[in-house]
């Protein structure tokens, strides 16, 4: 019999054996997790490639905080460059009864200079390419704005004093950072409409861009000219800069998913190793027999390697299909539906993941199989002459290292991977240690238990090492899911709940000094509560104690305010707050002072236009930034109002947003920018929700891999369990008693895994809440209910599946087994 027919027969005969099924399951889970993440990553990569060169909608961009002077356009055109102008501003958009903070992008007729826009007539309809922006008197909204405002094509939108019909849905714009994953919904209008809307008053915080495209030489010449002509606040953006920006959000999502895949692969590798060991162990008699009959070790090894190869092929096929479905799901979740869909998935990532699965099999399954080479023929006569089964030598470390290194390299950030792997290893170590302690506890309990309990707990003790691996693997998977599903939602909810009832939920910026009173009365009329109106000026820090300020991101341009009393949510930690008649003093937020190394008594010099003035630091404040009040790093004494150009910023709480008509405020004071913080928090929540739902798909594989480890461990101890079950039946235990014993063993294991997973996720939640949000997280009973019931269902369920043969073992077996 040659190696091919031997391997085929082995596969056919042993195909239904538990060990081979579990070995295949481990390979399938690993393939599926890799295909899911690999395919998604590939699609994202191609989306970025598609945008390459178009990411600016131009070849070069000049960006600034003020409108780009006409001279810039004239010079560019004299060099033969094509130009376009874009102005963006965040503002409230009203459609019918709904309002929404949107990012308005106003474009000149020639926009875009590179790439094309894509438009659809209605939601979910086929889109088509357009080479220029909207005409005057019409507006295009993106699918997110359409959903947020519950608007349809044909509805009319109110923007400042303007009323524009919504004429199309904008499905793609080349220079949108992050593709469909940006922050605020988009509205695109004609430049002239924005200029007429009165939204661009002084200090409106609009962003201005000059887009340029043309010959390389002309562009280089323009760059040189710009170096001399650059105005304050202007900067040059190249295609490379834009791509970096665009890729950032997606790269982070990709890394997060990569980490999830990595944990699944590691757990799957454990399952593969356990089941391969079990399978190899079961083949020792067969190998000894084949050797006795004269089969060469080489042929047997070839046959076993071929067997593994068939199994890997089959697993790649099944895992590939599962992973393909999962990547589609991740893509849909992250892109919020098909309208901003990524490029279609392709076969290559499936193939590369398949190759990786092959490597995984070579690393973790092949060594136990090949160690069968050393089974002595004498085993057939006397089992005690057998060598100890084990893994082949250090040579096998090569594929093992390869299998663990590749996903790390794929993650693209070795430092992050090392941190994650180290963190996971530390976490797994803690879980294993806690598992070991819990097992010791049950050991002590077993001494006081009776019958079924004694039998069940003794089983747990007997398989303690395996039990710890199972509890750790399952605990990790469960913890990841609990963190994503329960703790995340609870953290956000409790954080919102931790804010006082009248915490400001709206901000208004850009209030001019002469509009303060009318804005105040308009807001009070709409029921605004806890209204604070504060002056604000933007100035430069020029010197500290007459020395240049340190090179720090908080130095340079800063927003300052002035006040004659200590504002709420501020607490003096050093010095004393200035008196209402003080002059030339300043109070600093502790964070700012610490970062710049400024102390009480230091003199700070500021510049504003041609003005230069100094103030002495007389107090340091601890600021509660979570209070949502308007707070400033730097507070000056009130005389600053006399010489600093400024505007006002308002914060307030709207107890009944439905009854209030902020549109009226917006209409009467069109230059005001109203920011609905609640809507922003909601949007942040949505983004977190989106990414966590995508990660849940991948972490489901982690949990699945944990389950396969559990089944593999069950499978490797099946003979032992059957023997024990037969023994106690012989001693008079009935089925119910055996079942109870097994239920106790698995129930206790589930409880330990659940206890570890729930406590670890509650602790993580508590740490996050304390460190990031500054409140005490209280895990809800739901966390424990879900954690414990999920563990019970998973462990007891798989214990049940893995132990069917144990329950069916007749007691007479005990007379027929030698040991």
């Amino acid at each position: 019999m040659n190696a091919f027919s031997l391997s085929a027969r082995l596969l056919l005969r042993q195909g239904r054996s538990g060990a081979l099924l579990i070995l295949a399951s481990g390979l399938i889970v690993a393939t599926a997790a890799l295909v899911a993440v690999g395919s998604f990553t590939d699609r994202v990569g191609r989306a970025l490639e598609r945008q390459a060169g178009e990411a600016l909608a131009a070849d070069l961009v000049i960006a600034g905080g003020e409108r780009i002077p006409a001279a810039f356009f004239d010079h560019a055109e004299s060099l033969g460059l094509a130009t376009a102008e874009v102005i963006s501003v965040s503002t409230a958009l009203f459609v019918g009864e709904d309002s929404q903070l949107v990012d308005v992008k106003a474009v000149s007729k020639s926009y875009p200079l590179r790439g094309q826009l894509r438009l659809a007539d209605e939601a979910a309809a086929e889109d088509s390419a357009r080479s220029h922006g909207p005409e005057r008197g019409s507006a295009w909204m993106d699918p997110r704005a359409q959903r947020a405002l519950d608007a349809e094509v044909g509805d009319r939108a109110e923007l400042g004093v303007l009323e524009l019909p919504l004429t199309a849905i904008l499905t793609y714009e080349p220079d949108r950072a992050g593709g469909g994953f940006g922050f605020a919904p988009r509205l695109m209008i004609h430049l002239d409409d924005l200029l007429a809307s009165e939204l661009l008053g002084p200090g409106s915080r609009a962003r201005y861009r000059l887009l340029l495209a043309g010959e390389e030489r002309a562009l280089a010449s323009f760059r040189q000219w710009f170096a001399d002509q650059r105005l304050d606040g202007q900067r040059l953006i190249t295609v490379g800069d834009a791509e970096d920006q665009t890729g950032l959000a997606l790269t982070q999502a990709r890394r997060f998913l990569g980490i999830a895949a990595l944990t699944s692969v590691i757990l799957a590798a454990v399952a593969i190793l356990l089941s391969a060991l079990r399978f190899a162990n079961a083949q020792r008699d067969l190998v000894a027999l084949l050797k006795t009959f004269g089969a060469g070790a080489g042929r047997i090894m070839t046959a076993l390697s071929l067997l593994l190869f068939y199994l890997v092929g089959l697993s790649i096929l099944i895992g590939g299909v599962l992973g393909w479905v999962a990547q589609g799901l991740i893509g849909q979740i992250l892109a919020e539906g098909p309208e901003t869909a990524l490029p279609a998935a392709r076969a290559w990532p499936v193939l590369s993941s398949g190759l990786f699965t092959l490597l995984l099999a070579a690393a973790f399954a092949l060594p136990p199989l090949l160690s069968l080479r050393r089974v002595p023929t004498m085993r057939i006569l006397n089992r005690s002459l057998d060598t100890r089964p084990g893994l082949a030598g250090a040579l096998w470390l090569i594929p093992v290292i390869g299998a663990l290194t590749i996903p790390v390299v794929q993650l693209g950030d070795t430092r992050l991977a090392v941190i994650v792997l180290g963190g996971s290893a530390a976490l797994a170590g803690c879980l294993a240690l806690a598992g070991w302690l819990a097992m010791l506890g049950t050991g002590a309990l077993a001494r006081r238990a009776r019958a079924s309990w004694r039998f069940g707990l003794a089983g747990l003790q007997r398989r303690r090492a395996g039990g710890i691996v199972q509890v750790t693997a399952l605990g990790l998977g469960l913890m990841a899911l609990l963190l994503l599903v329960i703790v995340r939602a609870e953290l956000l909810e409790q954080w919102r709940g931790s804010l006082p009832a009248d915490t400001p939920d709206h901000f208004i910026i850009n209030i001019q000094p002469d509009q303060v009173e009318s804005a105040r009365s308009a807001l009070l009329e709409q029921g605004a509560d806890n209204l604070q109106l504060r002056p604000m000026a933007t100035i430069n820090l020029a010197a500290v104690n007459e020395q240049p300020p340190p090179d720090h991101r908080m130095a340079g341009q800063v927003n300052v305010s002035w006040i004659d009393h200590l504002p709420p949510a501020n607490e003096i930690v050093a010095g004393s707050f200035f008196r209402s008649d003080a002059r030339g003093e300043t109070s600093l937020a502790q964070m700012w002072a610490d970062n710049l190394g400024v102390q009480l008594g230091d003199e700070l010099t500021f510049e504003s236009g041609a003005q230069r003035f100094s103030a002495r630091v007389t107090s340091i404040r601890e600021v509660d930034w979570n209070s949502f009040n308007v707070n400033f790093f730097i507070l000056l004494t009130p005389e600053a109002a006399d010489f600093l150009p400024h505007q006002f910023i308002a914060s307030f709480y709207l107890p009944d947003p439905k009854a209030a008509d902020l549109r009226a405020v917006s209409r009467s004071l069109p230059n005001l920018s109203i920011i609905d913080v609640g809507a922003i928090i909601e949007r942040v929540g949505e983004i977190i929700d989106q990414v966590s739902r995508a990660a849940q798909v991948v972490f489901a594989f982690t949990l699945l891999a944990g389950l396969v480890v559990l089944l593999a461990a069950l499978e490797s101890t099946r003979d032992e369990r059957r023997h024990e079950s037969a023994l106690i039946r012989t001693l008079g235990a009935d089925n119910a008693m055996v079942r109870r014993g097994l239920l106790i063993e698995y129930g206790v294991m589930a409880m330990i895994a659940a206890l570890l997973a729930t406590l670890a996720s509650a602790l993580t939640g508590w740490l996050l809440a304390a460190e990031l949000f500054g409140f005490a997280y209280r895990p809800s009973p739901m966390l424990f209910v879900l954690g414990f019931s999920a563990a019970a269902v998973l462990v007891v369920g798989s214990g049940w599946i893995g132990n069917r043969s144990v329950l069916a073992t007749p007691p007479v077996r005990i007379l027929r087994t030698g040991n």
Partner: protein
Amino acid sequence: MTTSNGSILVCRRVDFSVQAPGGHLDILNDISLDLNKGETLAIVGASGSGKTTLLGLLAGLEQPTAGEVWLAGENMKTLDENARARLRRRNVGFVFQSFHLLPSLTAVENVMLALEIAGLDRVRERALEALEQVGLSHRLDHYPRQMSGGEQQRVAIARAFSSDPVILFADEPTGNLDRQTGQAIADLLFGINRDRGTALVLVTHDLQLAGRCGRIEEIEDGRLVRSTTPDPGNRLQLIEGGQRQ
């Protein structure tokens, strides 16, 4: 049946066959035997003659394909597997060639487990008494792996008689032990039979051990072919010789 004629075990025209690829394979054929309270019986025969299968049928571990087995007055044909297990709890003790102790339990816990399965009270006291009787008071908290073969078999014997069964089945109880230890184990078994009146069914290859029983049934190709009663003088001599060891 026990009440009428004192039989603790009755076996009537028992057949046992299994389905094999070539058709029916008859393992036991027309087996009948009786065992009274306190009696000792050895079943001897060559490998594959069916003696272990017969032990399994007599103890209710398996059901015969034809015929009836009565154990402690119960017709096992009428009992399902769980009911037979419950019958064994109180009436049957087992000693095996490979000891079959649970490796994760100490000596005393192994004995206690059997008592707990039997639903008895004062399990620890009873287990301690039983281990003391087999001379293992100093090894109570040792695990099987920490004990010699002879010690493990003594724990198994303590486990077997601790629940005070009416019948004790022993399958090659000295098969894995050296001659001297085997002799000591046999002495223990016959001592229990003598002191407690527990009936003893022994399956063995060892004719000398079989010779210490009140009756020897020889099995060949699944049939009982010869029933002999060893010379009581010889038996006594063997027992006393054993006791002197």
